């Protein structure tokens, strides 16, 4: 699984800001949905800036910025030690920054039934959420959403793609 983490930063795109914060936006029904590009997490632009983000700060901030995908084994929502350590960083960061909010997006690979996979994705998101809460993040900083197998990060019907698709993305909603 470590391999995938190295790939992660390359997947991130800096996307100009979200027009609405979380919840059920009434303006989210156009072709842009939530106002962000699908799959690519949003972070780091300052309102009114020209679109280039400048991540700064200590190492912990860098981790929060760059390492935001948790991977899972087949049909499992269990977190391995490395994932728990990463989530501790995010949890402490959220505790220190109560203004931050994250959306935890649970995903599965394409195998099996679609609606059951919605359940698996939700279970993964909740598993991540519980670690963040233990680390001091507040309930109102966290939201879960399950996309099941509907939003793969990688295409293909092999274990490499499946491994990248069984994930929870931690999406900072700034």
């Amino acid at each position, binding site marked *: 699984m470590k391999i995938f983490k190295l790939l992660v930063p390359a997947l991130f795109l800096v996307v100009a800001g979200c027009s609405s914060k979380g919840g*059920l*936006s009434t303006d*989210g*029904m*156009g*072709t*842009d*949905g*939530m106002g962000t*590009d*699908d*799959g690519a997490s949003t972070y780091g632009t300052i309102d009114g800036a020209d679109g280039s983000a400048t991540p700064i700060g200590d190492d912990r901030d860098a981790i929060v910025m760059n390492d935001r995908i948790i991977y899972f084994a087949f*049909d499992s929502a269990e977190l391995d030690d490395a994932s728990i350590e990463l989530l501790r960083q995010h949890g402490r960061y959220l505790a220190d920054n109560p203004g931050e909010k994250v959306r935890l997006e649970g995903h599965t690979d*394409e*195998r*099996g*039934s*679609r*609606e*059951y996979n*919605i*359940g*698996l994705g*939700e*279970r993964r*998101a*909740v598993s991540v*959420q519980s670690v963040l809460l233990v680390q001091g993040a507040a309930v109102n900083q966290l939201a*879960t*959403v*399950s*996309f*099941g197998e*509907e*939003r*793969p*990060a990688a*295409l293909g*019907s092999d274990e490499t793609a499946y491994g990248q698709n069984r994930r929870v993305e931690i999406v900072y909603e700034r």
Partner: protein
Amino acid sequence: MTLLRARIMLLCACLCLSQALRAELTIEITKGQGEAVPVAIVPFGWDGPGPKPYEIARVVSSDLARSGRFAPIAEKDMLQKPTAVADIDFGDWRIIDTEVVVIGRITPAGVGRYQMEFRVFDVFRGEQLLGYRLSSDTAGMRGAAHKISDLIYEKLTGIRGVASTRVAYVSVRGDRLKPTYRLIVADADGENATTLMESRQPIMSPAWSPDGRKLAYVSFENGQSQVFVQELRTGARRRVSARKGVNSAPTWSPDGRRLALTLSKGDGNLDIYLLEISNQVLTRLTNWPSIETEPSWSKDGSEVFFTSDRSGGPQVYKVSAKGGNPKRVTFEGGYNARPRVSPDGTKVAVVHNDRGNYRIAVVDVERAYTQVLTEGSLDESPAFAPNGEMLIYASRAGGRGVLSTVSVDGRFEQRLAAEEGEIREPAWSPFPIN
């Protein structure tokens, strides 16, 4: 929700109701059946001036072929093409082993209207089995042809035909990681594909209302799964469930008044609820810490079948619609999910893990006997035809999502593919209300 609000939502979601996005499907028979009855649908005669307004026989032939029960002979192999009873030479048809011959005529019946009559003959006895007269305008000719197919099918098999039914499905096109999702309804033969809803966010789980006039489905257009109900004729729709967390897997009670659906209510625990559509009264049907989802009603509405992984892996259970203790239904194999109850209530179709391959199986409800019907590796979303003779399901062909139908005995299979992109999550409509 007011009608105005519903209208605005329609516009915002870029609904392309009845627009000419004709995602035409191609149909290919991928697995034949030895015992199909040879029939001849002779081209109908035309009593009016100018060219024949419609090739009824062509539509009827392909409808009967798609049923898997009949093998219509090619027009070029017909030794004669009678259009009146007196012109039929049964000997000619016996020579080429045709068992049933259908002849017909179209006559003008006023401006833009036609009368069609057809007769069905048993070749060996030389007897008429069936005869009907129908009338239609130009636009209704295709529908009339499907009706003729259904009358013939029912006469010959004793089972109601499905040529006049429709199929809803989800089409996924464009950039594969950022596609456009469409909810489409087409005739059972893939024609007249109409887009009901279009979104850049996933659309899932279309489900027909029992009267065939509405679809319930899941849309992520607001950033999370929510359940909508949309009228086919007007395109008007309502958001019926947008509770915190998962709102998913809607299916209609047989009386059309309730939806069974899956909610997580924000605590991450998926359970099945019944939602009274008119007044939003919600009743919790299951309460278990595992995943409970994919409800499917029994025909009489007394029971709800569902998927639960309370035993470890997903298996099918059933529970009284009034609540109570669920009873396990599937026992063979470690993965049985997404039940759909057959129209006669004796079987459930499931997604079944068969030695690492996800395939469609039917499970006998009483005896728990499992029969695997398909041969793919990623088959899913089975749905029964309203007459219970066939299942439609989603599968892969050449790395692409296609739909397939398979007869309930697994012997006859055909594939429906879109010209472009993927299609999936098929739902077969109920019989049309006459």
